[in-house]
């Protein structure tokens, strides 16, 4: 569902059983390890060519860490990452560098992610220099001008500094920098959540236009369920380091199957007073537990209205319940 052709879509990124565990050390002279935080714990997903995979979850669920580990901006402690058919999880720094051109990142905070002492032209142009993509000064200038225009800014703005730009314009600069090296895959980590409501739509539209124009694939990490619904082809829901449900956008929002996905969707008020007046909110109790000491079995079981005995002891695997729709929940044990 959701995809146009009947042919098997081509995988661009394939992440398998990815884990990122951080050691916890006791304070003192001898750094003794006393535990581990399983920020990402056995995550498997694909990103197909030209699609947007939305990744949602509450703070601490591991969605941002998953994004960073996929680009190897932090090192995974387990699992594999295939990009354009090649396993990049074991590549050396040197061998990774040319591949980094193909995978880029757009960050949440357009205020702290741009160097305040650099002119915008050089912020955008830096990746060109690093990857030796601009032969001459004229070429550099021409390409940076072009990038500014692509994201809806003017070439004369290249000589200004980041503080002279509004939040929305800064996010355009961040996008231009990501595009400089002609990537095929961009990880967007909460790209609009720091922006004002009236500006968010500008950036969402820009990202959609660029995806069309350059055939980009996105991993779109966000907590805003309405934004994710709008932009995604498929959506993955994370809870305490694991994917609990993954499906096409339509299936996930119309037929949410994991009790956590259902709870998330029911918790969000909809911008429609007539609908809200009739809508019952079944609100789940408690908060997301600490990943230092996650609950046994299914980590959602202490908050789950449907939990039964096996949920407390056995960790559910992600299983396909319908074509392209997988859920990690014992209710779908079959």
């Amino acid at each position: 569902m959701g995809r146009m052709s009947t042919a098997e879509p081509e995988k661009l990124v394939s992440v398998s059983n990815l884990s990122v565990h951080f050691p916890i050390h006791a304070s003192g002279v001898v750094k003794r390890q006393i535990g581990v935080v399983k920020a990402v714990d056995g995550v498997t997903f694909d990103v197909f060519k030209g699609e947007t995979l939305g990744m949602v979850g509450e703070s601490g669920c591991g969605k941002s860490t998953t994004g960073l580990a996929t680009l190897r901006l932090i090192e995974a402690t387990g699992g594999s990452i295939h990009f354009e058919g090649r396993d990049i999880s074991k590549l050396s720094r040197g061998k990774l560098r040319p591949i980094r051109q193909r995978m880029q990142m757009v960050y949440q905070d357009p205020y702290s992610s741009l160097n305040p002492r650099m002119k915008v032209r050089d912020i955008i142009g830096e990746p060109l220099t690093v990857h030796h993509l601009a032969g001459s000064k004229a070429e550099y200038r021409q390409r940076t001008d072009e990038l500014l225009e692509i994201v809806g800014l003017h070439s004369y703005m290249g000589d200004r500094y980041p503080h002279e730009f509004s939040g929305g314009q800064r996010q355009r600069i961040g996008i231009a920098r990501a595009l400089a090296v002609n990537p095929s895959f961009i990880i967007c980590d909460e790209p609009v959540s720091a922006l004002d409501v009236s500006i968010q739509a500008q950036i969402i539209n820009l990202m959609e236009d660029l995806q069309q124009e350059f055939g980009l694939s996105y991993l779109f990490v966000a907590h805003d369920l309405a934004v994710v619904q709008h932009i995604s082809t498929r959506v993955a829901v994370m809870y305490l380091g694991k994917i609990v449900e993954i499906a096409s956008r339509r299936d996930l929002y119309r037929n949410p199957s994991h009790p956590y996905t259902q709870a998330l969707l029911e918790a969000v008020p909809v911008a429609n007073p007539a609908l809200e007046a009739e809508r019952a909110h079944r609100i789940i109790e408690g908060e997301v537990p600490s990943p230092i000491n996650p609950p046994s079995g299914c980590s959602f079981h202490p908050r789950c209205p449907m939990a039964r005995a096996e949920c407390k002891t056995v960790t559910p695997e992600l299983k396909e319940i319908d074509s392209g729709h997988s859920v990690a929940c014992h209710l779908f044990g079959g």
Partner: protein
Amino acid sequence: MALLEVKNLHTHFFAEGSVVKAVDGVSFDVEPGETLAIVGESGSGKSVTAMSILRLIPNPPGEIVDGEIRFEGQDILEMTDEQVQDLRGNKIAMIFQEPMTSLNPVLTVGRQIAEPIELHRQAPLDKALEMAKVLLRKVHIAEHDKRVSSYPHQLSGGMRQRVMIAMGMACEPKLIIADEPTTALDVTVQAQLLELLKELTREGHSSLILITHDLGVVARYADRIVVMYAGRIVEQGTARDIFERPHHPYTIGLMNSIPKLDQDTKEKLIPIPGAPPDLANVPEGCAFNPRCEFAVEKCRQQRPTLEPVAVGHYKACWVDVRS
């Protein structure tokens, strides 16, 4: 009679020879028992309006330069400092966005909840602490008997915000001002707290001013809405009026620009072009005119006043955009 009447409020900030008109002529009422949402983007003046009501504007650089704020008929701006202190945390409570920075880290939560009870009800400490336990139970904190002696850092973000709510409720206020009370929290916790706030305000027949940028939250909880832009009110009405029959181009623009959870479409969003103005340099006439597709010459010259478009529904716009 309205519980709160804000009339022609002007709160300005003075810095380096420039004047930032954070609130520039704002008037609205809050009726007993109602929830009024003040909606706007950053810099729209919604928080400064809330702070002005309790005279919490730091001076310098800020100053309430004009207007009236009548609470139960009495002008807060004319009161002595003692009189205002007697209102704060008593008849008017404020719940802030950041529960970590607004709680005292070296006092137990019990002591902090007990403080307004001691102060305003002249209750002895042991009695006030007993009441704090009752309040913690009211805000659904598990093991409230133990939690009363916890320090803020021992609590999760959601629990801290529950403590803030308990503190606000301590003296059964007539008016609660909640400034982005759940913005820093996760979705599921946000829902728990907003439902709690609704339940408690209903129970105590209190009025609530809810300051937020989240239109979903507004749709669920507000009776009436004030939409602010660049320090001014651009539209005001019931929640249904504002969502179903918006009249101001900015309100219409906001409604069109947000993706909606109840609409599964791949249609393009319609953004509002440009960005909100610098408050030290607000455009002449209507502050929204440079971003407005309907703007005519008059909009660039004359500032529109808030005029009725229907019973209880007002807009500040020279153009009739709905015909």
